Each structure stands twice: as C-alpha cells, then as structure tokens.
C-alpha cells in the first residue's frame, strides 16, 4: 500500500522552463514540473491549454524550443518517440484500437513493437510468441486473453494491451491520455484497479483526463495547465472546484452562459429510438437557443446528431420540424429542409484535402450551397468569394484571403470555416458534433459568440467537455447510453 506522508518520494522526471511555440501562439510558456515515483499525477486543462504539447514533448514526438528535462537525474532530450520509450517513458495514446489490428491475436499485439525492432528473429513460432507475450502481460500484472483476436476484445482490454506493451521495456513513467474516454463505468473501475497496482509498485503515472470523477478517485496530485503555464498545483484530496476555476481562469458561476428567452419550437423529437432496443428519448429545440449535449464518448451524442441530420437512420419515434413530419433519408434532404450537420473531426467530415480542387476557404464554405448560389450550374460570378470574404470578417478567420488553402489555417480558424459553411445560408436547425476539437481558447470564444448571436436558428451542440457546454448553452443535457437527462444545476458540475 502507498502512503504519501511516509517519505519524500523519488523524483522520476523534472522539467525546467519548458517552452514550445507553434507559429505565433505559445503552446507552452515555461513549465516547471516534477513527477514522482509511485504517484499518480493528474494533468488537467481546457482544450488548447498545452496538455497535448507537453505529452508530445515527453514522449519524444516534439522537441521543446527551450528548457531542460531530467529523467532519473540524467538529461533527457529524446529525438524520437522510440528513443523516449527506450529511456523509460511509456505513452498510451487515446485511440488504443490502433494498438493492434483485427486478425492479430492479443499475443501478437503485445509483441508488435518487438516484431518491428531490428535484430528480432526472422522466423517466429506460435509457441515462442505466446511465451514472450505471457511474460509481457505478467510483467504488467495483467490477465489478458492472449489467444483471442484483438478486434474482438473490448475497449478496456485493448487499453490493457496498450499499457502492457508500453510497460514492457522497463518504464519509469506511464503517460495515459484520456484512458477512460471509451470505457464503461465497470471497465473504468477495472482500469483504476490496474493503475493503483502499478502505482504501488513505484511507477510514476501522468494521467490526462477531462473527467473530474476519475481524477478525484485516482490522483495523488493534480496540475492544471492554462495557456501553456501551470495555473494550479493541487495536493490530494483534489479540490475539483478549484481545479476547474484554475482551468478556466475565473470562477465557474461567471462562466455559464446566460439563459435567454427563446422563440417558437423548431424541432421536436418524440420517443426517438436511435438504435434498435435503445431507450426512447424526447427533445425539443427552439429558435434562437443553443442546447448542448454532454456525456462520455459512445453515449450516443454523435448518433443523435447524425439521425437528426439525415446521416443515420432512426429505429423508431417521430420527428417534427416546424410542426411538419420530418423524415430525412439523406443529409441532402435534411439540408434542403434547413437542418444542417457539421460532423465530428472536420478533416474527416467536412474538408477535402487541401491541395485537391475544392480545398480553399471559399470552396469549402460554398460546397452545400452550390445549387442555390449557382442555379444555372456554372460557377461564374462572385457569389462564392463574397460569402468567404464576409465570413472571414464576421468570424475573424485568420486567412490570407478567400482563396487561401485550408492547410494554411490553424485548427481554430479551420473550425470557423466549418461554421461559416453552415451559417452562410439561414438554417432552421444547426447540429454541431464536437466543434471545439483542436480549437484554441480565443477561436472558441469567437465560435461561441457566433453561435449565440444567431437568434433564428436552433443550435444543438455535442461536446464531451462539460466546460464547453456550460460556456455555450442555454440548456444542457447529459447523455449516457442513449438516454438524455437535463442538467439543471451548474453546481453539480463542481461537486
């Protein structure tokens, strides 16, 4: 068992004055931090606060512009992720389904990086693989189904595979990025047990999460990053309210968006069933209001938005748009009816590659509106360029001009282009799925302002970050396992 008061724990990793700048924006503006053996250190921060940059530097993916790192007392300046891993930094990224592929067994997945390493034997026998994999799993103290297909095991087991593999070379520090994002409560509890076991064996763990409940339960210490600096360093028991205040930079109650009077009912869902066997849900959206859906990944937020936007079928229930039955069979039909959807991950759901035709700011904005803007079918005239110039001015998009390629824009400005696309023509319902991914705080404020300024459209935003929901919405729902619960009391957020 561990006891924080007995002795001063060993410093595993110390950071001095770490700085990193991307373009004009400093991602890390001088971070001093020490990470101790046998402790779980929670790293908190809003999107764009510098968490990923810090992780990328520790794991060798980026080099800092300035500052020093000491690992077990020796200078640590990894040139590559492989070098950082050899030095004892084990990093487990958020999407652990990439830890293996369907068709490989769990044993194969555990040994994947050994197969890749030079000097590994050319021929491997099934038995030797299984023996080596069992050793890797045992070293981490996990019980894993070695012979099963990696694609068939659950997300928690995939997470364990990723952790066991990361720990297989004498690791001193384990970095976990949002490890519970795709886990159910039971699976998360199992993961916590595993992490506590690793902690008691003296491993240092850097735990990155948005989930305050996880952090309260696990962390021995919490460090809050804001604008690339450490804004708070909190001991156990973690004062979550103080952490959130530090994260945002002001008390939480001043943060929540003001509730406003809203117009007529625009969209009404009754007994809507998203997937066969799921619970029915009701939802009413009014003109001029912004409603946020929050809750863990996999709770059905994206599914609900896709169903409303015509991109996914519904299993039951009725939808009414302005009083009339609404049954979109494709996104095209939904758009024609005035219900527009910006999917999650703008690169996957909204953009074409930057050097492909259609990859400029103006062309990205105009794509759904070509029929309306160019009824004759020929793309001559200024309509497209005007729309882009207006959007650039209105949303303060930093771009060289309407014909700038998307790749020359930062993430926040790219997301503004997505918003500009769907605000270029009046819509009845605007559906936004995770609109703040990779968006810095400044751009986020601009987007929030633009969304709240639209008093004719009903806006529904899905975000797994409760802070974003608070900042944005007139009403908030928590979604869990396809079920909606109104979230009335902002204090519950801090509790």
């Amino acid at each position, binding site marked *: 068992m561990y006891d924080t008061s007995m002795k001063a724990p060993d410093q595993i990793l110390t950071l001095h004055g770490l700085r990193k700048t991307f373009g004009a924006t400093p991602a890390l503006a001088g971070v001093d931090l020490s990470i101790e053996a046998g402790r779980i250190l929670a790293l908190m921060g809003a999107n764009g606060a510098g968490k990923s940059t810090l992780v990328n530097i520790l794991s060798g993916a980026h080099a800092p512009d300035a500052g020093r790192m000491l690992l077990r007392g020796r200078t640590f300046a990894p040139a590559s992720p492989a070098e950082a891993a050899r030095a004892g930094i084990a990093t487990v990224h958020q999407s652990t389904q990439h830890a293996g592929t369907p068709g490989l067994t769990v044993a194969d997945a555990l040994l994947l990086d050994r197969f890749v390493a030079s000097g590994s034997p050319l021929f491997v026998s099934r038995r030797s693989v299984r023996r080596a994999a069992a050793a890797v799993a045992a070293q981490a103290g996990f019980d894993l189904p070695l012979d099963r297909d990696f694609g068939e095991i659950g997300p928690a087991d995939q997470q364990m595979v990723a952790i066991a593999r990361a720990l297989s070379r004498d690791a001193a520090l384990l970095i976990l990025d949002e490890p519970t994002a795709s886990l159910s409560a039971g699976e998360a509890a199992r993961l916590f047990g595993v992490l506590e076991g690793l902690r008691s064996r003296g491993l240092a763990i850097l735990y990155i999460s948005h989930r305050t409940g996880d952090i309260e339960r696990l962390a021995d210490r919490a460090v809050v990053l804001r604008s690339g600096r450490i804004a708070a360093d909190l001991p156990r028991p973690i004062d979550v309210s103080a952490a959130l205040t530090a994260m945002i930079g002001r008390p939480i109650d001043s943060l929540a968006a003001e509730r406003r009077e809203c117009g007529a009912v625009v969209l009404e869902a009754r007994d809507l069933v998203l997937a066969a066997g799921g619970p029915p849900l009701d939802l009413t959206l009014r003109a001029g209001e912004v409603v946020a859906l929050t809750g863990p990944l996999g709770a059905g937020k994206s599914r609900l938005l896709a169903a409303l936007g015509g991109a996914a079928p519904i299993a039951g229930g009725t939808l009414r748009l302005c009083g009339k039955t609404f049954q979109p069979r494709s996104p095209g039909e939904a758009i024609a009816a005035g219900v527009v959807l910006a999917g999650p991950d703008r690169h996957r759901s909204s953009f074409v590659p930057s050097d492909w035709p259609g990859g400029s700011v103006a062309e990205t904005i105009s794509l759904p509106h070509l*029929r309306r803007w160019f009824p004759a079918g020929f793309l001559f005239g200024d309509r497209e360029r005007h729309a882009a110039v207006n959007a650039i001015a209105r949303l303060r998009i930093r771009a060289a001009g309407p014909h700038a390629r998307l790749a020359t824009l930062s993430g926040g400005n790219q997301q503004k282009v997505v918003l500009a696309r769907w605000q270029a023509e009046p819509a009845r319902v605007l559906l936004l799925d995770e609109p703040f991914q990779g968006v810095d705080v400044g751009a986020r404020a601009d987007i929030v302002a633009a969304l709240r300024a639209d008093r004719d459209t009903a806006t529904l935003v899905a975000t797994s970050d409760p802070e974003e929901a608070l900042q944005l919405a007139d009403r908030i729902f928590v979604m869990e396992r396809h079920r909606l619960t109104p979230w009335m009391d902002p204090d519950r957020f801090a509790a």
Partner: protein
Amino acid sequence: MNDKPTAELDTPSAVPRGPIPARGWLVARRVRQSGLLLLLAAMVVGFTRADPAFLHIANLMSVLQSVAVVAILAAGVTLTLAVGGFDLSIGAVAASSVMAASYAMVVWQFDAVATVPMVLAFGAGVGLVNAGLIIWLRIPDLLATLAMNFLLTGLQLIPTAGRSISTGLILPGGESANGVFDPNFLALGRARLGGVLPVPVLLMLSIAVVLHVLTQHTRFGRLLYAIGGNEVAARLAGAPTRALRLSAYVISGTLAALGGLVVAARVGRGDVSSGASLLLDAVAAALIGFAVLDRRYPNVFGTVVGAIFVGVLLNGLTMLNAPYYTQDFVKGAVLVGALSLTYGLRRRTS
C-alpha cells in the same frame, strides 16, 4: 490573387503560419508549373530544326490524329479519377465497340445513324454496370473495372468466333455476312473539315473543351472532385454521391465507345486486336496530366496536353528514325519523369 485584404487581415499575425517562400522556391515552383509545357515547346522547336517538315500543318494534324483516340479515352478516365475511382475497362470498351460497330454494319447491315447511337449506348451501359459493381456491390474501383476489362476482351470474340469483321465474313453458322461499312460512318475517322482538320481531332478538341468546362467551371465538376477528395464530406454537404459517381463512369464508358467508333471508322474493319494499347496509353496520358501545370490532381486540360506530349515525342522520334519498338519505353520514361517531377521535387521544396 486579386482580392483586397479586409481590415482585419492587415495585422501581421494574420499571415498564415509556415515559412515565407524564398525566391528560389518560387522559381522552382514556376518551373514545375510550366515544365511540361516548356518541354513540349522545346520538343517542337528541336524537331523542327532537325526536320522542317515537322512543323507542316499536315504533319501536325497527323500527330493530333494519332493521339485523338487516346485523348478521348483519357479524358473519360480523368473523370473517374476525379471521383476517386479509376476506370480500367476503357481499353476493352473501345475494342469491343470497334467489333460491335463492325458487326452491326456488316452482319445486321445497319447504317451509320443506327450504328453510332447503338455503340454509344453500349459504352454507357458498360459504365452503368461498372458503377453498379462499385456502388452497390462495393467492389473496389480498380478490381471491378479490371474484371470488366477482362470480360469484354473475351466477349468481343464470341459472336464471330474470334475472327476479324469485314465484308464477306463467314459467321459461325456457315452463312456469309455481306453488309458494308456505311461511307458516312467511315467519314467519322477519315473526313477532314475544310480539307485540313480531321474529324477525330475535331472530336478530341471539342470533348476536351466541354469536359474542361464541365470539371472546372460547373457545379457538377466541383461535386465530382468533392467526392474524390472526401466522399463522407461530400455526402454530409448534401451531394448525391451515388448519382455523381455513376455519371462519371457512364461518361467514361460512353467516351471509350466513341473512341472505338473512331478507330473502326479509320480502319474500316473490325480488327480483333485493335485497341490493345489504348488502355495503358490513356492511363499514362491522364497521369502525365497530373504534372502539367503541377496540379497533382486529375484534370482534363493536363490529360489532353499529356496525350499530345506523347504524340509529339513519338512522331518526332519516328522522323528521326527511332525504331518503332522503342515507343513503349519512351512513353514509360515520360510517365516516370513527369510523376517524379511533380511529386518528388514538390516534397523536397515545400
């Protein structure tokens, strides 16, 4: 370009991130953009100095005539490349169109007015089947169209039991077919407008202009490219992705059939081995087109320039007495060179 920056953009921080291009980089970019066109001009000058007859209008027309069929097919492939697909059945569509046109006239004794629409409909039908395999059965584009290429290459041999078609053909049943090629049909491959401009060249140029405008300046073209760039994004933006993908394959099949008609009209018989090299030549032209103007995406203008580039090179080399068997090697070298120029240099300088 010609856009005045708005007031918000005048702040220094509004300049997009990334290194400011150095002068040398801009020069390199210009060279890459116009590289193939400059090379084409240099070849014309060089061949003319070697033999002034090269620049005679008759020779230039013969160069264009020699690439017309390939360019027509390649323009169709370019459309399927734009939707992120690849039509590898065009060679067989063209070859079986040669056979179908000949069969219609010689055995069924059709005239040109009946034959041409029938063969074009055949090409469109193959495009439909390709699209069906790709869209509804979800067979990858390359596999579906390559399989179709095989199927048609075999199918065209069956009605005549593997014989070439000309008047007097003995059918598998024993009777002989006595139809003749309609002179109006032969004009499609042999007539010259005003005694100068061959009909195939006129067809090639008009198709090039129409498809260039269609892909670059219409809603239809923008949506085709959107599908090729990101099909999910195109669908979420409301584009009818299936109908668009289908139309790209139908256009490609129809143009391949038109290419076959031109070949049949020029040769005046249904030769079983015609069109053997059409597929690879057309694909090469479309890929060289990526390098023209350094666009690095399929584009009709580049494709047609690519086809002409190869034609000029082969014609000039033939004039300089290069043996015929070096032709494929030369085409391959041009393709490798053009693609290295666009992709390789780009990565190093950007």
